[in-house]
């Protein structure tokens, strides 16, 4: 089909209606010592030490920031173990044996509404930095850096679009914890002194809309509104979301704060709520386990650090275990595939998708142009691919591959089943030389 691809074959309605299963007490929990943004870490505890939930047990060092590591349960530190991280690398994890008491660290407090109302932006930034809040939609960008902008902000956008197919983690979060989200938005608006907040959701989600029309009545004159945007992919990309919600078209590479806009994912907002209200770092999150390689797809609310192997049996195990499987952390369009199911849920894992491996033979490109029409940043993936095949650096640079957001639409829409996105990734390497 020679046409722009916008709708992606989806199975969301399979799991979107299921309430999340609370699985909060794995026997062992594993905390990563390194992640994609922070390659090194210091650990402050010794083997055999007792830790409390939320206790700071180490510090990750990134190139321009530091990130405290928090224990996500109470128990005993029993040593290090290697498991797969979301980024596909074998990483050292701190192994904590859960004592199921869930005793809190003494840093956890309850701030009264009056105290919160007095907090300034700088104080909030400090709290969020100490709680190691990051973008939970998958970017893992430190939230406090976003808070440090000195540009005037008048609109806060809440990204509840979750445009990747198959995932329903944010969907369930929005349905199940609307008050946390609303309070979180209020805190953020207070920090930036913003007049307006828009909760962006896909217009096809009538259930979320019903919940928030009710909830918003309890927040009169707060400036918070529900904003139904398009159902297509990649609507959740910030540029597309800002354009649809506010009508502002960002220039390539421009930061939203330039135009007075700041945007957060809904789960990040819940993280901010917990941090400001209780000083709590993120230790729980929603995930979806789905895909055609899983017997009973489900949503879960789990502690960060839960091994995925504990969750698979709760979904009825793998379907057709004799077939080759692809194991994806994140969405099917942008998520990373890991070489083993021995991985750990970190803060930014939104979903686990298990597919049966399909090997579709690659055909020659027929220049149908579907990839060009589908590309949200108006590149020409097929031309980039041809340039990469000839290793023509001039041409690659001229075709601007660095603007690519790796949304995967070019591979998805290719009628010849060519992995075009891979070529664009190669072109990015070329263009940086």
């Amino acid at each position, binding site marked *: *089909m*020679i046409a722009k691809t916008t709708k992606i074959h989806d199975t969301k309605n399979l799991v979107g209606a299921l309430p999340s299963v609370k699985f909060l007490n794995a026997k062992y929990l594993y905390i990563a010592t390194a992640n994609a943004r922070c390659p090194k870490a210091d650990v402050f505890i010794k083997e055999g030490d007792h830790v409390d939930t939320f206790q700071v047990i180490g510090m990750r060092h990134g190139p321009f920031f530091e990130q405290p590591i928090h224990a996500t349960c109470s128990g005993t530190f029993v040593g290090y173990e290697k498991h797969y991280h979301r980024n596909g690398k074998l990483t050292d994890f701190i192994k904590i044996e859960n004592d199921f008491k869930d005793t809190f660290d003494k840093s956890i407090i309850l701030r009264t509404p009056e105290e919160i109302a007095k907090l300034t932006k700088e104080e909030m930034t400090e709290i969020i930095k100490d709680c190691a809040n990051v973008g939970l939609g998958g970017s893992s960008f430190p939230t406090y850096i976003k808070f440090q902008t000195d540009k005037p902000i008048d609109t806060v956008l809440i990204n509840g679009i979750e445009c990747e197919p198959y995932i329903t983690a944010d969907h369930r979060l929005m349905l199940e914890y609307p008050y946390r989200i609303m309070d979180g938005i209020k805190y953020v608006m207070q920090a930036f002194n913003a007049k307006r907040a828009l909760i962006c959701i896909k217009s096809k989600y009538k259930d979320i809309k019903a919940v928030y029309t009710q909830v918003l009545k309890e927040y009169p004159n707060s400036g918070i509104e529900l904003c139904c945007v398009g159902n297509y992919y990649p609507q959740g990309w910030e540029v597309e979301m800002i354009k649809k919600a506010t009508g502002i078209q960002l220039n390539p590479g421009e930061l939203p704060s330039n135009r007075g806009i700041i945007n957060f994912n809904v789960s990040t907002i819940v993280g901010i709520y917990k941090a400001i209200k209780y000083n709590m770092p993120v230790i729980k999150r929603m995930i979806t386990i789905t895909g055609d390689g899983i017997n009973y797809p489900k949503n879960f609310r789990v502690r960060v650090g839960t091994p995925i192997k504990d969750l698979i049996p709760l979904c009825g195990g793998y379907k057709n275990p004799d077939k080759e499987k*692809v194991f*994806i952390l994140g969405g*099917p369009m942008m*998520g990373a595939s890991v070489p083993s199911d021995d991985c750990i849920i970190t803060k930014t894992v939104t979903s686990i998708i298990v597919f049966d491996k399909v090997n579709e*033979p690659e055909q020659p490109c027929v220049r149908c142009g579907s990839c*060009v029409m589908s590309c949200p940043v108006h590149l*020409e993936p097929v031309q980039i691919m041809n340039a990469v095949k000839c290793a023509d650096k001039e041409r690659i640079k001229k075709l601007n591959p660095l603007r690519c957001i790796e949304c995967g639409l070019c591979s998805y829409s290719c009628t010849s*089943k060519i992995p075009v996105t891979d070529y664009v990734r190669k072109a990015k390497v070329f263009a940086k030389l």
Partner: protein
Amino acid sequence: MTIVKENSPHIRRKATVTRMMVDVLIALAPTLIFSFVIYPIKTLIFYVISLAIMNAAEFVYVGLRNMMPKDDQKHTFKEKFEHSYKGKYGINNFLTASITAVIFTLIMPAGAPIYAVIIGALVGIVFGKLLFGGLGSNIFNPAAVGMVFAKLCFGNQYKVVEPPSWWFTLVSGPDITTGATPLTLVNGGALSDIGRYDLLSMFFGQMPGTLGEVYKITILIGLIYLLVRRSIDYRIVVSYLGTAFILAFVAGLSVFGLNNEVNPFHFTMYQMLSGGLLFGATFMMTDPVTSPINSPSRWIYGIVAGILTMFIRFFAALPEGVGFSILLANMVAVVLDHYEWSNPRYTWKKFVAMGSLIVVAGLATWLLISFGGFYHA
């Protein structure tokens, strides 16, 4: 259970090239059947010849291209054969050669001698496609290459073949006994003869011509099918036919004026329904391989091809411009795709370019015709 790694994205949409090609074959089917009913023997012979030649050429080509490199060991023929073809020759190779064969059959005039068909088919597939590297790499439409080559070499040996007389009387058509196709009438003969073919019988193809191009009704069915299935890009069809329509109307206006027994609208429809315009727009212009890659370029491509077609019809010594103009437009497509300026965004510049192309072509048509440039003896 084994877990394998792969790069994102992990899902693909269902549409495939195979589906697109099967769609084109389905869309061609009514026309082929129609032509078979009218000229049973001719169609069968032409079709079998071109199908055989083109598929054989594709098969040999795949074999040569993947030939086993010479080494010291002895290999049985079976091994060599498997090395050449296993996983390399698939359904798509067969489909693409067959599409070319069907199109080539349908654009050959019924009066072409058999050796012209053989040579045309061979030249079309080899020089039009395989030498460039097979499916996806060719610049020119192979069927058009074959047709134009055969026409240039053997055109003087083409005979005019009348469709059987029952066909003419079927839809109460006019009683025609002339041997001229409608376009030779416009181009070589007297313009007043234009009234001899009424539009309805042209629509049903009650006139001499090539094997398949004349049955507008079946071509339209194919066009609608392809558009609904989105297997071709509507932009090319619309811009090509639209440009042709505008230019034909301008020409009609300047030849006949408004108060003549042949009104310009009649002339326009006459141009639209004659020759291979509709067939070319549906099956040849839209071949994705030989059209530009992005949407604005496709509009421009259709406009350029439309202008070329009408100019060849009006001002050149050829009755039929579709084949030639498609080949010329194919070259323009390559230029439009150059990385320095190809850009999938619509910009003001491009709209201005498209508009001025049409306006300039319209003006040129009007001026040339007013000063007697219209090619008729």
